[in-house]
């Protein structure tokens, strides 16, 4: 049997998809998390309920949305709720089991920054900001973090804490009185980091095929702890790759004809 060829990003998405359970309820953003959830729903997690923060509950897109409010999401949703209800009742109320997060920076305790690089008042890079991330991090029963591994992204100290992970480690998150148990794994393009049961510091527990432990340590901005026994991720199967590659992005809409019919021949 020949080994399938795949990209590091495909490995990340497949590893993330596998984390979802058959009847999971997952809160997803655009990009890799959306790919992972859509892959999972088409493979092992047939009863997965997908939720996008625009208010679409239990949606079943046939294409990958470009934005969290893509028409495809509302068209195929069982329910569309207001943003107020989404954040207050569904997220804060504790009705979402799994959340996916990403960020520009992560620290060793899984705290995330998607707000600014540099000083808040005069930032070097102004990032988009919080969105729904702080609430996903606090209120989903569990979260998974997806990001590409580098010394710029896995840092010793965040410039800004947008979303909380294990705060300062150990039991410090418990003092926040938020229901979610926090990040259960960081899935990168190199491998897998999981929290140490006591210190809650993220530790390298697996590498993807062809990646060395040293490369993962080298691509980390803090002295990365390595588990006693580091596993190797099962590579994507042919079936997983087929489904993943069959996911097409939502198409753009062309309103040219409508512009003509509404406005040609003189708008007032």
């Amino acid at each position: 049997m020949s080994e399938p060829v795949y990209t590091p990003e495909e490995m990340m998405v497949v590893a993330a998809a596998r984390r979802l359970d058959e009847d999971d309820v997952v809160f997803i953003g655009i990009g890799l998390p959306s790919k992972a959830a859509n892959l999972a729903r088409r493979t092992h997690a047939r009863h997965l309920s997908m939720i996008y923060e625009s208010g679409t509950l239990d949606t079943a897109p046939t294409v990958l949305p470009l934005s969290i409010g893509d028409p495809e999401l509302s068209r195929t949703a069982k329910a569309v709720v207001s943003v107020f209800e989404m954040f207050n009742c569904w997220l804060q109320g504790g009705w979402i089991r799994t959340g996916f997060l990403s960020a520009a920076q992560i620290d060793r305790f899984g705290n995330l920054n998607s707000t600014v690089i540099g000083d808040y008042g005069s930032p070097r890079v102004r990032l988009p900001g919080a969105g729904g991330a702080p609430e996903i991090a606090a209120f989903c029963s569990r979260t998974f973090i997806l990001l590409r591994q580098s010394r710029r992204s896995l840092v010793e100290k965040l410039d800004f804490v947008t979303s909380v992970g294990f705060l300062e480690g150990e039991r410090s998150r418990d003092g926040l009185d938020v229901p979610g148990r926090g990040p259960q794994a960081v899935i990168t393009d190199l491998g897998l980091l999981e929290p140490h049961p006591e210190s809650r510091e993220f530790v390298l527990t697996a590498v993807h095929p062809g990646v060395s432990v040293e490369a993962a340590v080298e691509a980390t901005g803090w002295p990365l702890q390595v588990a006693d026994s580091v596993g190797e991720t099962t590579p994507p199967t042919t079936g997983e790759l087929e489904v993943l590659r069959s996911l097409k992005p939502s198409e753009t809409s062309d309103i040219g004809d409508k512009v003509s019919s509404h406005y040609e021949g003189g708008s007032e």
Partner: protein
Amino acid sequence: MTEFLDLTEAIRTHLKPGNVVAAEGFTHLIPHAAGLEIIRQEIRHLTLVRMTPDIIYDQLVGMGCADKLVFSWGGNPGVGSLYRLRDACEQGIPHALELEEHAHAAMANAYTAGAAGMPFAIFKGYRGTSYPDVNPHIRFLDCPFTGQKVTAVPAIRPDVAIIHAQRADREGNVWLRGIVGVQKEAVLASARSIVTVEEVVDRVDETKGGTVIPRWAVSAVCHVPLGAFPSYAEGYYGRSNAFYLRWGEVSRDYDRFCEWMDRFVIGTRDFGHYLLALKQHGYV
């Protein structure tokens, strides 16, 4: 009660320099036509409020209409940065922009508090984050029954809400369907409201779905077909993902941005002529 106005007149009547303006839309039904008309009328010193400022807020900021932005996620959805917003924050181009930054949960609650006539909202957000360090409008208080700590933010009460909807009836009752975001709350939280619509019909109701905002909560209705472009209006037209992607190129450089805005927005009389110009140049 609702007046039917053309968009130029509605903006001139209801929007004044220095106003707090919420032109809301959560990916869907974003009131682009109305935003461009604010730029055409060169209304300045605005405080712009929106959970998800995207292209139209990037344009307002880049054209110098805003003194302050209250927001919770500022990006080009699925694409990347809003360069005009970044340049304003990182380099003060065209002038400094004051930021009041929140998370989505805070803003959704703050709008609802505004709609409910409350001075503030409570929720459980921001714990363990840096936001309370940089935003003095985030405070904490204790539950009077259990002593548990909760988070408080001030209500949002704009001078003007602007939204886009699919339909209005001839009395000014507004109907929208699909992703509704915080639009209804924004209208009810605001002193005045302008609604652009795809279509004016004889009757709207909710018997086949959708949400009606009754006429007495709406100041002005403007008939502006395609008024959400490049966003979308469910049941009318889809999202122009291509335009969102092209906006990245157009807006990256300040000079190119100014040239583009001059040609297509300042140089056109109204939204219809803007769309025709875009069509002529292959943008739609």
